[in-house]
C-alpha cells in the first residue's frame, strides 16, 4: 500500500493547484489589481493638479485601495471550492485542514497581493510620493497584504455558506484591517519625513506572525461550521 503525502508535499501540491486554477481563471484574478490601479489613478483626476496634496495623501490612497482590492478578492479563496464540493473533500482529507488552508491563503496572496507589490512603485511615483518613502511603502505592502489575506480567510470561511454573505464579510473583516492600515500609513509618513519606521514595521511583522500561526486554525474551524 502506498503512503499518504508528507505534510509539506500536500502543502505544495495544493498551492500549485490553486496557482494553476488562478492561471486558468486569469480574468477573475486580474480584477483586484485592475481595481487597485484604477482607484489610484482616479484620485489625481478628481483632486486636480496639486502635487503637494497628492504626495501628502499618497500613503492613505494606496493603502485604502489595497485594502478594498483585498476585500474584493477575498470571496474567491473558498467560494468556488464550496460551490463544487471540493471544500468538503478538503475537509475530509487525511492532512490537517489548517495546513491546507495555509496553502490556499498563500496561493491567494501570491495571486492577489503580490501583483500589488509590483504596481505600487509606479503608482507611488505617479502620486509624487517622496523617493525615500517608497522603500517603506513596498515593505508595508509586502508585510501587510498577506495579513489581509489571512484575516480575510476567517471571514470568508464564516460566510461562505451564506447565500449573500458579501456585506457581512465586509462588516466582519474591515474593522480587523484597521490596525494594518494605521501602522502601514504611519510608517510611510514617517519615512517620508525622514523619521525611523522600525516601530511600525516590527508591529506589522508581529501581526503577520500572529496571523500566519493562528488564523489557519480559526479558518479551518470556521470552514467546518460553514459546511455542517
Amino acid at each position, binding site marked *: *500500500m*502506498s*503512503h*499518504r*503525502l508528507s505534510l509539506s*508535499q*500536500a502543502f505544495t*501540491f*495544493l498551492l500549485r*493547484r490553486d496557482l*494553476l*486554477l488562478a492561471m*486558468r*481563471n486569469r480574468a477573475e484574478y486580474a480584477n483586484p489589481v485592475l481595481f487597485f490601479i484604477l482607484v489610484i489613478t482616479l484620485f489625481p483626476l478628481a483632486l486636480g493638479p496639486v502635487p503637494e496634496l497628492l504626495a501628502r495623501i499618497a500613503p492613505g490612497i494606496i493603502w485604502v485601495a489595497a485594502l478594498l482590492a483585498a476585500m474584493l478578492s477575498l470571496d474567491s479563496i473558498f467560494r*468556488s471550492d464550496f*460551490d*463544487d*464540493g*471540493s471544500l*468538503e*473533500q*478538503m*475537509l*475530509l*482529507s*487525511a*492532512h*490537517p485542514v489548517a495546513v491546507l488552508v495555509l496553502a490556499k491563503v498563500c496561493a491567494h496572496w501570491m495571486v492577489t497581493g503580490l501583483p500589488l507589490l509590483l504596481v505600487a512603485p509606479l503608482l507611488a511615483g505617479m502620486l509624487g510620493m517622496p523617493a525615500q518613502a517608497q522603500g517603506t511603502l513596498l515593505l508595508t505592502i509586502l508585510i501587510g497584504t498577506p495579513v489581509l489575506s489571512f484575516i480575510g480567510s476567517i471571514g470568508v470561511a464564516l460566510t461562505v455558506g451564506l447565500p449573500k454573505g458579501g456585506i457581512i464579510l465586509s462588516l466582519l473583516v474591515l474593522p480587523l484591517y484597521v490596525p494594518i492600515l494605521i501602522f502601514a500609513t504611519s510608517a510611510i509618513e514617517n519615512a517620508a519625513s525622514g523619521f525611523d519606521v522600525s516601530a511600525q514595521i516590527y508591529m506589522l511583522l508581529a501581526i503577520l506572525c500572529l496571523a500566519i500561526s493562528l488564523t489557519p486554525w480559526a479558518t479551518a474551524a470556521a470552514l*467546518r461550521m460553514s*459546511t*455542517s
Partner: protein
Amino acid sequence: MLLVEGANGSGKTSLLRILTGLGLADSGEVLWRGETIDRLAGDYFEQVTYVGHHDGIKRELTCLENLRLARAMGIPSALDLDEVLERVKLYSYGDTDVANLSAGQKRRLALARLLATDSTLWILDEPFTSLDKASMALFEDLFTGHLQQQGMIVMTSHHDISMPGQSLLRLRL
C-alpha cells in the same frame, strides 16, 4: 454494505454527512474501531472516501489533474491513474477539462476517486445520479469487488441495486 433508504427529506444525506464527520450530530457520537472520529481526525479521514451530492471536482482542471488532487489528499492506491480512468471508461478524456464533460461523465470521474485512493469505508450519497444503465452496472461490479476485499460501503440510492452474492443491510429512515 449498508443501504440507507427513505423518502426525500428523511435525513439520509444528513446521516451520511454525520458519518463522514462533515455534519454535526445533535446527540451521540460516531465511533470508528472504538474511537470517536473527532479524536481520530486524519487517521479516520484517510480510511474514508466520500462522494456526496456535489461531485467535488474542479471544472477548470483536467480529469487527470482532478484525480491527482484526490490522491494527494488521501492515500494513493496502487492503481495507475490511466488505469483508473480506463476502469470508469474515461480513458480518452484524461487531458480534457472537466467543464467539457457531460453530467454522467463528471459523476463517473467523481466516483473514480474510489479507485484512485485506498480507503476502507466508502460513503456514497446517491452515487448513481446521472449515470446510464451500463455505468451503473460498472459501479455495481466495482462495489462488489470492494466488498469482497473486506471493504465497507454505506450508501443511499433511489435506484434498484443488483449485487448478487453480497449481503445487503438495509436501514429505513
